[in-house]
């Protein structure tokens, strides 16, 4: 139903750099689409129209002048509103940060800018990236451009919707437990959660620091590969950044999957709908037909991932979000003394889901409860990593559904947090292990809505993951 042009990153970058298309033209197409549908979709917290126009004009001038314009010349990009952008409001879709303008760019933002990208705006998210539907935004939900009665997924729902609606050529989200892959699946896009430490977290407002990674949304696997090559690679400003250059991904896409071993998890958690499971089977068939071998593997601890995640991530979040105290920046609600000011500020500034997770996390770390909750969750995390290690002795990558269902309707899960949390059953173990995974659109399911297949790979297994993703794309 979208009438907006769906240009690929690779095509735009080549055409703009080659002078056959202007950055301004690409941007104006996006701005026209935004004018037509943004009111309905609400993908953005902020559209930076003037900055984007100046930037596109500069790139066009540079092309004319024969200057090097970078690998992403004129590629329009939407950024999740939890990535710091110098001088541009960064809110995390929270009232507590409304109006805050960072004095610096996230490393990812700087790397994209250095390659000629044009930033269209900051996209909506579940507040502080806590959610799976973008219904937890303090500024209102984002609608799925493919069916506006349904959610786009979350927490990076705004970034997914922006690409699906043609508001930008590509976008970036952050993935702590599935927040890129699940909305990518629900909006029919490619979405990548890189190996932990591959992409710098510097300038990403932290949710679960040991789990968070930034990654791209795109319409093609090749686009995702190019974007990964631009943003990945060591950053001395992030101590958890792996001291390695970005992987080569674009040049592996045509290699095919002949001889690769694809893992099928025999004890996969239940609860997926039949249409989704049917597409997963079709994906195995397609890879087998392309020369891969399907092998059975087990992941007995996979079903405990969700529980462990909802201790580890909130524990880290309770600490990461403590700095929003009304003292130095963001919202302050004045009160008669310090503790009352803290209480009033945080009560007014945070939404229910954020408060729920801060309380969960604080409890999990408290004296007398640490061992039973946080401590035990760390052990489960270790078990999951061990299970992955055993599974990857038998296979190169594994496939699961990305989401148990296609995009669901607004309000379906808001009254039941546990049902909402179950959306991330298949995506969470990757974050706990620090591995790589991506969602690739693979046909449609119920109501003609897209189904995503998740390709799981071990740490630094991006090349194998992208080979498989490219094969699935060819077969779909």
């Amino acid at each position: 139903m979208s009438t907006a042009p769906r240009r690929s990153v690779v095509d735009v970058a080549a055409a703009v750099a080659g002078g056959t298309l202007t950055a301004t033209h690409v941007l104006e197409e996006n701005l026209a689409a935004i004018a037509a549908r943004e009111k309905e979709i609400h993908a953005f917290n902020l559209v930076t129209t003037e900055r984007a126009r100046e930037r596109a004009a500069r790139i066009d001038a540079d092309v004319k002048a024969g200057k090097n314009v970078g690998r992403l010349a004129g590629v329009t990009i939407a950024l999740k509103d939890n990535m710091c952008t110098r001088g541009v409001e960064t809110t995390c879709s929270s009232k507590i940060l409304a109006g805050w303008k960072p004095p610096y760019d996230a490393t990812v933002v700087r790397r994209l800018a250095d390659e000629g990208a044009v930033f269209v705006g900051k996209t909506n998210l579940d507040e502080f990236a806590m959610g799976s539907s973008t219904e937890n935004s303090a500024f209102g939900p984002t609608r799925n451009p493919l069916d506006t009665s349904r959610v786009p997924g979350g927490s990076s729902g705004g970034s997914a919707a922006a690409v699906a609606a043609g508001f930008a050529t590509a976008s970036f989200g952050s993935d702590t437990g599935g927040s890129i892959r699940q909305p990518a699946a629900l909006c029919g896009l490619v979405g990548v959660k890189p190996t932990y430490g591959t992409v710098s977290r510097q300038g990403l407002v932290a949710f679960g620091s040991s789990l968070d990674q930034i990654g791209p949304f795109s319409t093609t696997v090749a686009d995702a590969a190019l974007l990964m090559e631009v943003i990945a690679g060591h950053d001395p400003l992030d101590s958890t950044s792996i001291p390695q250059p970005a992987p080569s991904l674009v040049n592996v896409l045509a290699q095919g999957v002949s001889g690769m071993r694809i893992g099928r998890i025999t004890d996969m958690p239940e609860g997926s709908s039949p249409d989704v499971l049917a597409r997963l089977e079709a994906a195995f068939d397609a890879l087998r037909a392309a020369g891969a071998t399907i092998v059975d593997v087990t992941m007995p601890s996979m079903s405990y991932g969700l529980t462990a995640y909802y201790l580890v991530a909130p524990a880290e979040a309770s600490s990461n979000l403590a700095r929003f105290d009304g003292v130095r920046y963001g919202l302050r609600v004045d009160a008669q003394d310090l503790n009352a000011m803290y209480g009033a500020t945080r009560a007014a500034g945070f939404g229910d889901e954020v408060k729920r997770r801060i309380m969960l996390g604080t409890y999990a770390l408290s004296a007398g409860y640490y061992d039973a909750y946080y401590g035990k969750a760390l052990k489960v995390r270790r078990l999951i990593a061990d299970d992955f290690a055993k599974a990857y002795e038998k296979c190169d990558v594994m496939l699961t559904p990305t989401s148990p269902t296609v995009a669901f309707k607004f309000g379906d899960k808001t009254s039941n947090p546990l049902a909402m949390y179950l959306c991330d059953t298949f995506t969470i173990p990757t974050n706990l292990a620090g591995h790589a995974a991506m969602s690739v659109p693979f046909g449609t399911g119920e109501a003609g809505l897209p189904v995503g297949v998740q390709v799981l790979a071990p740490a630094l297994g991006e090349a194998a993951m992208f080979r498989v993703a490219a094969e699935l794309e060819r077969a779909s």
Partner: protein
Amino acid sequence: MNTSASTSAGTSGEPAANPPSVVAAAEQLIDGWELVVGLEVHVELATKTKLFSASANRFGDEPNTHIDPVTLGLPGALPVLNRQAVELAMRLGLALNCRVQPCTFHRKNYFYPDLPKAYQVSQYDQPLNVDGFLTLPGDVRIGIERAHLEEDTGKSTHFGGTGGRIHGSDYSLIDFNRAGVPLVEIVSRPDIRTSEQAKQYVSELRAILLAVGASDAKMEEGSMRCDVNVSVHKPGTPFGTRCEIKNVNSIRAVGRAIDYEARRQIDIITSGGAIKQQTLHWDDAAGRTNVLRTKEDADDYRYFLEPDLVPLVPDAAWVERVRAALPPLPAARRASLATLTGQSKESEAVAVVVERGQDAYVVEVAKVGGDAARALVYVQQGFAQEPAAPRVPAGDLAALTLLEKNAKITATQAKTLLADLVAAGGGDVIAMAKSKGFEAMDSGTLEALVDAAIAADPDAWAKFKAGEQKAMGALVGAVMKSSKGKADGKAVSALLAAKAAE
């Protein structure tokens, strides 16, 4: 001694042996109660930049001029560990005979306006330095449990209200220049048994910090801060409940706070009460402790591994490079200076000169032929305002020691020349002595003056001969006067004694 001990502890890879359980001597007990003290000392490391960011680590500048996104805990800012801070902390750990080990960082969570992230990055169950010791005068070993890295907080100043506390104040201002400054917290074992030992411990620790260049250790500027844990018990019984005293900001205050607190605890116990585990605040002006908080309302810091940092694993080669570069430590320097000058290593002159770092200068004076014992005294008395490397050339001071040693001038004259020499930053002491008319009297002249003094005051002479030592003063004074200060007081005394014995 410390140097060799640290080498053997390290090369064997074994933790330094813990000292045997320290027991107070009978005369150290207070009404039969034994004092048990442990110290937690925070020192700011003398790094160029902060522990996790590139802002300058400088004291005393305009507020909030050394800040950045990491210091202020802005969203998205991440810490990057300062290598120089790690190296200085290792240096200190090795100087304290600690084992340097792979370690991790934790978050200590609590809310306070001068703590920008609402957590302090510190080390918890895996600190950088463990199991060391420090030796006090008299070879008393105090165990060091750990010396770990952490970041400092900002500095709050509260205006209006009472007593400079946040509660009840009109407003508060925060200077974040100090936030993120690297600290090492040195935790002693509860091996200290007297307030005097506690003072010696702080003083010795300070000397070590200065010697290795880890910190400027200025207690008055807060770059060295002491928390004191005090309990009392009867010898042979388990330790008592301890109280922690904060805000102890001078070596003298360490002694006073411990003495006050020991007495307070003994009085409570002997009158039938029980000690509650409390954190106390030392009020130096009032000379007493006040309760800050009791254990029940202590914060739950919810420590967990800092996910923004990776484990710190100092490789063996690095540790050995740092160890090899350690300068001689104060205890070893005191011992060698004592040997050189024939003094006790516990003597004040030795301690003072080593603390000022002027011991190398005394060695140099001796090396160029000066008298070491006199050089030590001259430096102790005349070089208090001089830097570690005094301006007076070693040869000049050596010449002065020889003039006095060879009785060419008197001790009094030497003192005068020393002052002139220091004021001028050096000079030809023989020429200076001549220009002042300083020359030791020949023995004939001196004897004549002594005889004259005896003749002039037969009363005093009679009393002196009868054994009244006080009477000697009058006679010596008379000779000094008649000689216009050129007589050597010691020589006059000796002459008088000899005459009395005739």
